[in-house]
């Protein structure tokens, strides 16, 4: 089993946090995992992305060049990463911000208006967890529980107050309510 995900969006959309939760959840389930976020000047341009590799075997390169899944939070990222997707891959797309969604029979496209949903929950910033919830539901690569556990261990100190809303968002994304 080997899953390679690219998550991508603007700086400010919590892309790196989403990656951490994703990777942490895999770890919690005892899987091998690497998460390689973009960094430095690349982020100055206002984009953020990262690659997560999850496997039950030792992982070689942490760089994802042929992702099996994408979590796409904005338009630009769609343009950049969609062409890299593997055949039969899955795309979770934040349909609040991504308008041009390609049609293809070869890949599975899950649209979720994450930003809108997040606004409803009261904080635009949790769009990332909504998308992640959708991803978990879709791929079933690990349990929602592990993700919630990860949330709790990653949001510490002054960020503890954010656990609730993030948890809600995760659950919303993973639910069938949309």
């Amino acid at each position: 089993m080997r899953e390679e995900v690219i998550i991508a969006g603007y700086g400010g959309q919590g892309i790196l946090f989403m990656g951490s939760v994703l990777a942490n959840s895999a770890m919690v389930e005892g899987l091998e995992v690497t998460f390689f976020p973009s960094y430095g000047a690349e982020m100055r341009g206002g984009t953020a992305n990262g690659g997560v590799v999850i496997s039950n075997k030792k992982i070689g390169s942490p760089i994802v060049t042929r992702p099996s899944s994408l979590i796409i939070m904005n338009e630009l990222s769609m343009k950049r990463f969609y062409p890299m997707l593997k055949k039969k891959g899955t795309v979770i797309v934040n349909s609040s911000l991504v308008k041009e969604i390609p049609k293809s029979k070869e890949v599975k496209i899950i649209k979720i208006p994450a930003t809108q949903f997040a606004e409803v929950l009261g904080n635009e910033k949790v769009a990332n967890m909504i998308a992640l919830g959708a991803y978990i539901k879709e791929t079933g690569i690990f349990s929602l529980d592990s993700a919630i556990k990860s949330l709790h261990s990653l949001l510490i100190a002054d960020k503890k107050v954010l656990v609730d809303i993030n948890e809600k968002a995760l659950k919303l994304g993973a639910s069938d309510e949309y």
Partner: protein
Amino acid sequence: MIRIMHKILIKGNHAVVEGGIQAGCMAYYGYPITPQNEITAYMAKRMGEEGRVFIQSESEIAAINMVFGSSLTGARTMTSSSSPGISLKQEGISYMAGCELPGVIVNVQRGGPGLGNISGAQGDYFQSTRGGGHGDYRTIVLAPYSVQEMFDFTIKAFDLADKYRIPVILHTDGYLGQMYEPVLVKELKSDRKTKKDWILDGCKDRKPRMIRSLLMDEGELEEHNWKLNKLYDKIKMKEASCQTCFTEDAVVAIVSYGTSARICESAVNILRGKGIKACLIRPTTLWPFPEKTISTIAKKVKNFLVVEMSLGQMVEDVKLAVNGMSRVHFYGSPGGGIPETKVVVKKVKEIIK
């Protein structure tokens, strides 16, 4: 010895900091540079919490010379930087080597030469292993290939530095520094203080000491060089290490370290899957280089493929070890690119054709 262990998902750069903290690093001096900024920033936080010394120095040169200062008092000390900043430390490293001062220098390599880029790279192998500074000296060079090893080897670096009174370089790169992986963090009980009878801390109840590298008397420096050489020979004997797999029946040996070794590990698995008898030799110390292991293997295995994220640097050490017994091929990806698993597989197939 070990107090608690717990598994966390952290960046390689953070693992270096935690390793330092566990190893009893009492002072850290550094100057920001991508892709190792997390080390400096996280050190600022952690050393503050532990009540130890942290300074963001005015430059890399100041940092290495502060390391020099703290080290000579006997304190375990560390600095970190990335390629251009490490170049600036070369004079200081040479001084530490000359004065036999321990210390840990972390190089989270990026693309070069010049400003290059901020991607991970392995272009500083020569600098680390041959001494980018002046004069006849060596530093121990450790090459982790996972976030776990970033943690473990940092601790090992401090231990070796004190054991041999030598600067130790943790030779890593931007990929390892930036990558998150699960790490088993061991909290060490011992404060890992080594007894040191050569330090400067005021001459109470003893004769004054000096720590210096200027040796102007007739033959004095030459003698010192030979003394260092003896130390280096000892380290070569004792500390050369590498990880190998599938060597027993191999017809091709891939030699690779650090990030590129991860790719090669995958490649070897693929090759074995296809019935191709490849093996992997992964040096974990770059100096001393595990030449014995390699030369032993070279007696049986007639083809070597060296894979590096450079134009070819470690390949020289492999050739020196192989000493004409086998053919040595090379596949490099310089400038911050990462080698591709499928290219490694292809190269091996070409070689054995």
